[in-house]
């Protein structure tokens, strides 16, 4: 492999990986706080992507065709709506089972995931929907690397959102309350923190990040499919585990790593093995280093 190809593959991987990282953020935040894999995250990501198509097209109809404001408005509306949906998911599928054995919320979040993607399938008739082209496809040459302007924007938007989220959790009062709740829920309640509300908020933020990922993905690839949440969700979960689940910066690191790894994998192996390789990476990490690259060892089953 030439140096140029190497750099190009890294660049490709980083672009895809940044989107995975964004979805992974939702898994990691929710896991950190309720010790639950929220399977529904993959569904929220997909719903966000479809809401994005809807509002994007709608704005085109009302004459708002300038790409950047249109993307921003779409992002805000869809993230809000998906966040609201995540709130409902928490209320329906998680909160009533708070004291149940682990299997129950796991199955209910799985059912929720399946419900979300099935609803998308029914509403859209399972046909792939297309995002309007935002920017010209003319490639940008960055030294030896060639990228489309869209993928460059996607990458920076995803990184920006993730860094923003990281700062939110680090610096703000609510963010600290989230970390406190994650560290010790009872003690947090004793500080006067409404932990129930913090859990809700975490789901909402995770859902909104998922929606953002969905829209960025849609803008980049132009197409969204009713089953994107399945693979996307699983890859993102791989990213979350790789970065150390529960660890916010880890989601970014994990996302980028998975992106680059799968990008390389398909240069050494036939392209169609790409997904299988991601799954294999997932199993390997869980078997060898379940705490991830940056994570501390996750406490055994609560």
């Amino acid at each position, binding site marked *: 492999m030439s140096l140029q190809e190497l750099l190009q593959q890294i660049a490709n991987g980083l672009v895809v990986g940044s989107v995975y990282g964004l979805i992974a953020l939702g898994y990691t935040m929710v896991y950190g706080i309720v010790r639950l894999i929220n399977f529904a995250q993959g569904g929220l990501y997909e719903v966000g992507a479809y809401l994005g198509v809807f509002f994007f097209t709608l704005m085109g109809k009302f004459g708002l065709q300038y790409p950047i404001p249109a993307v921003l408005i779409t992002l805000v509306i869809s993230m809000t709506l998906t966040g609201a949906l995540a709130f409902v998911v928490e209320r329906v599928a998680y909160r009533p089972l708070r004291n149940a054995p682990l299997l129950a919320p796991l199955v209910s979040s799985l059912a929720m995931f399946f419900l979300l993607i099935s609803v998308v399938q029914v509403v859209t008739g399972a046909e792939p929907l297309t995002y309007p082209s935002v920017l010209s496809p003319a490639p940008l040459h960055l030294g030896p690397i060639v990228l489309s302007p869209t993928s460059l924007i996607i990458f920076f938007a995803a990184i920006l959102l993730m860094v923003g989220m990281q700062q939110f959790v680090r610096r703000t009062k609510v963010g600290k309350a989230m970390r406190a709740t994650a*560290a*010790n829920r009872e003690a947090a309640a004793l*500080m*006067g923190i409404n932990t129930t509300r913090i859990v809700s908020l975490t789901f909402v933020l995770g859902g909104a990040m998922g929606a953002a990922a969905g829209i960025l993905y849609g803008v980049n690839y132009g197409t969204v499919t009713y089953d994107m949440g399945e693979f996307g969700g699983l890859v993102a979960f791989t990213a979350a585990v790789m970065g150390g689940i529960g660890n916010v910066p880890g989601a970014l690191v994990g996302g980028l790593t998975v992106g680059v790894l799968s990008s390389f994998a398909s240069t050494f192996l036939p392209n169609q093995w790409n997904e299988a390789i991601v799954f294999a990476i997932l199993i390997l990490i869980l078997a060898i280093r379940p705490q991830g690259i940056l994570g501390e060892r996750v406490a055994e089953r609560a």
Partner: protein
Amino acid sequence: MSLLRVSDLRVRYGAIQAVRGISFQVEEGECVTILGANGAGKSSTLRAVAGLHRPSGGSVTFGSQVVTGEPAHRIARSGISLVPEGRQVFGTLTIRENLELGGYVQSASANGEALERVLGIFPAFRQRLGALAGTLSGGEQQMLALGRALMTRPRLLMMDEPSLGLAPIVANQIFGILTEIVGSGIAVLLVEQNVHRALQVASRGYVLELGEVVLEGTAASLLADDHVRLAYLGHGMGEAE
């Protein structure tokens, strides 16, 4: 009117009835201790008062407010602070963040003042505000938990086994600070296995056995009680001296 009035409080965990209808009160500025063997229902009582576990019966009144069955964060906001058993500091957060979270319900400026005040009580933390709480020793964690609870100037401070697992010298320090706190006018409800120490700080006490109050009285009268001496202070008064 008493600051805290607990009447006929019942607590159960599944099939186990941990507290079987106890009543007690704490007056403004007073230090009261609850004594009893392991499993007598002391911690359950504190947890129920703090709202960590919903009581199955009875009532808890704080000031003029009935707080029975309120969620923990509401009770915390009404002015009751619990330093839970085993410290429970936020290990992944810094000392400063731990303390600031103690003042979660108050404004940023009030928090700043409170931080100064608490650092005045625990000067050792001033140099180490950026350290992760998980890296502190047991005694330091206990101090941090206490400092965190004091951030809001609670009207009632509840402490669950503050000396548990600590070296006697550290426990002495904690009790010293506790005496200061009582002196500053904050009411304290103390659960402690070291009965002798507890009765030195407290003015009154209740003795719990199998979830019921079997004895109550002033610290002096309890210290003089044969039953207490035999059951909790060992033969005579040796141990703490």
